[in-house]
């Protein structure tokens, strides 16, 4: 697999949200706007790149039986670091993403990539994989957030597209998350079947 | 005149009480369409040839005992019951010569083993009136032998060999004989005609069955839409304390045996059980009469009453038809306008089977030939199930027809079996009421077929 392919794979073929349907909770919980969606995606990507890198570098010394606990420790460490950094330098973002930042720990994208990719590939490829999957996740969350924000508040990244008095609020509330994601996956299904 | 007054009083008194007698839950009220009610029984003219299928009953086909070219006498058996008992003999209604033995298409268009006979001219179809003969106390063996010799099968529709059914009661604690005069199917009036014309012979037949199976009573159940039949039967049974006639609410499928037994005895036959398990044996009125004729006079079952009805029929009515005569010939004699017929049904509109091959023969179980024309012959367009629950409401067997049908359509065999598909008696009530015209019964048949196939 070429380096580019590794990245593209994560963006498209194995897009964690639309294709693998992983990490549903942050996908639904942090996409009330394009900004929060993108932030969550990028935050996850940072942890993913770091954890992939770390897992890949220690893969040969970790016994199979304690593999999972070690990976959890690795991931949790990076998540906590991220949490501290956000609190210190971007408190508003930390408040907006709330509990979903610590919950990156249990996002199976991370454990899944550690298992499926990083523990079998070299450090560079693992970092690229983290980048690809992370970008795919960020892209999906940004799209979902953007769409919800557009429908539910009439803005995209805070810029007004049409007056918010015409915007059905539901789309930025909990039901809107489910419905917009469902419709997006259906649309993608339809496009993919056509090709 | 006296009779008419009596009849009116009887009807008025009984009506309110009898209307309550029925089964529950479920059931439907289709239009009666019994335009041929009250008509005379007309004997058809003898045909020039007949075809006698050897498998007119449930079970194994009969074994031919004549050869090609043989001459046969009217009433002579051409085939005898197969070895395992679930079979019935076949007799020829006419004298003639065996022209062929082999596969012939029956009215469904399927090739079946048959004996074809060229009928000698000059014979007629007649139900010989005989004075009521007193048949003394009989044993089970006598009745079974008579039924077997006469080739009697259940005339209520299922054509189950009667000898086998009655023989099966041996050793069971049967206390009640229920006689099925419900005739709940729309259109049909053949049992009605039989009850009006031969009430004495029916009552005599029922008492034979009673003493054969060791029961203590006979209950004849008749729907209230046949007041004259009830009256005649009541007259005929007045002298016999052990025979009672009860009127039943007019509701389909009142004649289903499970439903009938519940209505007349109050005993509920649980799913998967037979009437025998609650101490009841059920026979059709015409079967009872045929049994009497066989016991008293050794007469075989060679004729039956067939209701011929429909818009395109010139002379609708009840015809006495020899078994083996072709449907086309029967229709011809009833003045049918073949060009106006779009669909032919053997039996009632709820459970009857379509006739696909018009030259096929009338069989022992063919209670009617119903000609449908125009819109009546076609089903409405099927629409999506709106889950209105009507099919669930009407199913007399307490099933969920829409669910079994869906499982059948999707081929989900295990789910269909779990939902009780095999309990369905295919009465058609669910399809009848479905406002979306869904072919529920058809899909349930598919489900049943798939289940049976998967279990083999």
């Amino acid at each position, binding site marked *: 697999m070429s380096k580019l392919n590794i990245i593209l794979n994560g963006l498209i073929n194995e897009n964690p949200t639309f294709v693998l349907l992983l990490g549903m909770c942050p996908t639904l919980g942090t996409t009330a706007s394009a900004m929060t969606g993108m932030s969550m995606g990028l935050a996850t990507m940072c942890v993913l790149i770091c954890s992939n890198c770390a897992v890949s570098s220690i893969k040969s010394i970790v*016994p199979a039986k304690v593999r999972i606990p070690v990976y959890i420790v690795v991931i949790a460490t990076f998540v906590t*670091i991220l949490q*501290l950094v956000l*609190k210190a*330098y971007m*408190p508003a973002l930390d408040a907006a993403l709330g509990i979903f930042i610590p919950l990156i720990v249990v996002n199976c994208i991370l454990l899944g990539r550690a298992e499926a990719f990083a523990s079998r590939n070299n450090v560079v490829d693992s970092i690229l994989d983290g980048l690809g999957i992370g970008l795919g996740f960020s892209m999906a969350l940004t799209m979902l957030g953007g769409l919800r924000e557009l429908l539910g508040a009439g803005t995209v990244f805070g810029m007004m597209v049409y007056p918010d008095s015409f*915007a059905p*609020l539901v789309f930025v*509330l909990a039901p809107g998350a489910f419905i917009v994601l469902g419709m997006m996956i259906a649309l993608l299904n339809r496009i993919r079947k056509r090709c | 005149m006296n009779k008419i007054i009596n009849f009116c009083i009887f009807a008025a008194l009984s009506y309110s009480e009898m209307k309550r007698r029925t089964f529950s839950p479920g059931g439907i009220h289709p239009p009666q369409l019994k335009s041929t009610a009250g008509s005379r029984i007309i004997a058809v003219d003898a045909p020039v040839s007949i075809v006698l299928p050897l498998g007119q009953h449930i079970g194994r086909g009969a074994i031919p005992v004549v050869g090609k070219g043989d001459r046969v006498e009217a009433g002579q058996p051409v085939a005898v019951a197969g070895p395992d008992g679930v079979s019935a003999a076949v007799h020829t209604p006419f004298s003639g010569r065996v022209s062929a033995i082999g596969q012939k298409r029956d009215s469904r268009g399927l090739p079946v083993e048959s004996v074809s006979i060229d009928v000698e001219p000059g014979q007629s179809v007649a139900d010989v009136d005989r004075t009521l003969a007193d048949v003394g106390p009989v044993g089970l063996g006598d009745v079974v032998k008579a039924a077997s010799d006469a080739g009697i099968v259940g005339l209520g529709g299922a054509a189950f060999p009667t000898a086998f059914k009655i023989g099966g009661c041996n050793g069971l604690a049967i206390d009640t004989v229920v006689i099925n005069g419900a005739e709940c199917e729309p259109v049909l009036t053949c049992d009605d005609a039989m009850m009006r014309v031969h009430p004495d012979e029916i009552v005599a037949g029922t008492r034979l069955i009673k003493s054969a199976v060791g029961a203590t009573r006979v209950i004849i159940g008749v729907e209230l839409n046949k007041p004259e039949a009830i009256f005649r039967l009541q007259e005929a049974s007045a002298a016999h304390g052990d025979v009672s006639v009860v009127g039943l609410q007019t509701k389909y499928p009142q004649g289903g045996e499970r439903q009938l037994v519940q209505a007349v005895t109050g005993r509920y036959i649980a799913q998967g059980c037979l009437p025998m398990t609650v101490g009841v044996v059920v026979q059709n009125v015409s079967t009872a009469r045929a049994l009497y004729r066989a016991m008293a006079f050794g007469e075989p079952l060679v004729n039956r009453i067939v209701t011929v009805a429909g818009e395109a029929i010139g002379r609708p009515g009840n015809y006495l038809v020899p078994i083996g005569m072709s449907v086309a010939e029967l229709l011809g004699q009833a003045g049918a306008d073949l060009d106006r017929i779009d669909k032919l049904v053997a039996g009632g509109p709820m459970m009857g089977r379509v006739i696909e091959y018009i030259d096929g023969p009338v069989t022992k179980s063919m209670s009617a030939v119903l000609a449908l024309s125009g819109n009546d012959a076609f089903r409405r367009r099927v629409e999506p199930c709106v889950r209105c629950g009507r099919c669930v409401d009407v199913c007399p067997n307490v099933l969920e027809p829409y669910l079994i049908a869906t499982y059948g359509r999707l081929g989900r065999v295990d789910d269909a079996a779990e939902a009780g598909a095999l309990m369905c008696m295919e009465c058609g009530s669910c399809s009848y009421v479905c406002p979306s015209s869904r072919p529920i019964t058809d899909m349930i048949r598919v489900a049943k077929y798939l289940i049976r196939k998967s279990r083999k």
Partner: protein
Amino acid sequence: MSRPDSVWRMIAVLGSAALISGVLLGYFHDLTATPIAQASARRLSESLREMMPSFSNDPLTDAVGACVDGDSLRIYPCMDDGSLVGAAVESISHNGFGGDIRVLVCFTPDGAVAGFRVIEHSETPGLGAKMEDWFSGEPRRSAIVGSGGGGNLKVSADGGSVDAITGATITSRAFVEAVNRACSVFNRYRNEQAEYYS
């Protein structure tokens, strides 16, 4: 992985993973402790600078607590040349739609509301969450700012002068409640100060 995994090896790997993680986290914690503490202080002092006339003290260190109905609210007095130029009260209402609403309300020395900032809330996006923009807009703002310290503002639905957010009366009531509580706390503080100095 061809080598057999002995128990000791497992413990060693797990233990060192935990150790490395602990050390890393400790390091990052120390690194970020000050910025984290500053982050919240910075927001507060920035808000004060925007809403208050210039002051020379550090209101955060001069803050005092005042109890109302079981809540301890903080008062941040702003001084210039030893005289009070205003004060801010960090007030709270528990009757928000989604939970608590925290509001920073600034007062002039004579007890009139000088400004307000919503610090924290968990109201519905698009509805209650609009409250800061809504109440900062006219004519709501002038109904609140400059109002006396009586602490009896009411939303229009309850017969008052402050228009509620359409569809979010609950949030509006809670917001106004927080402002009212701030008023009463500040009034008490002012009276105490007056007594103290007189």
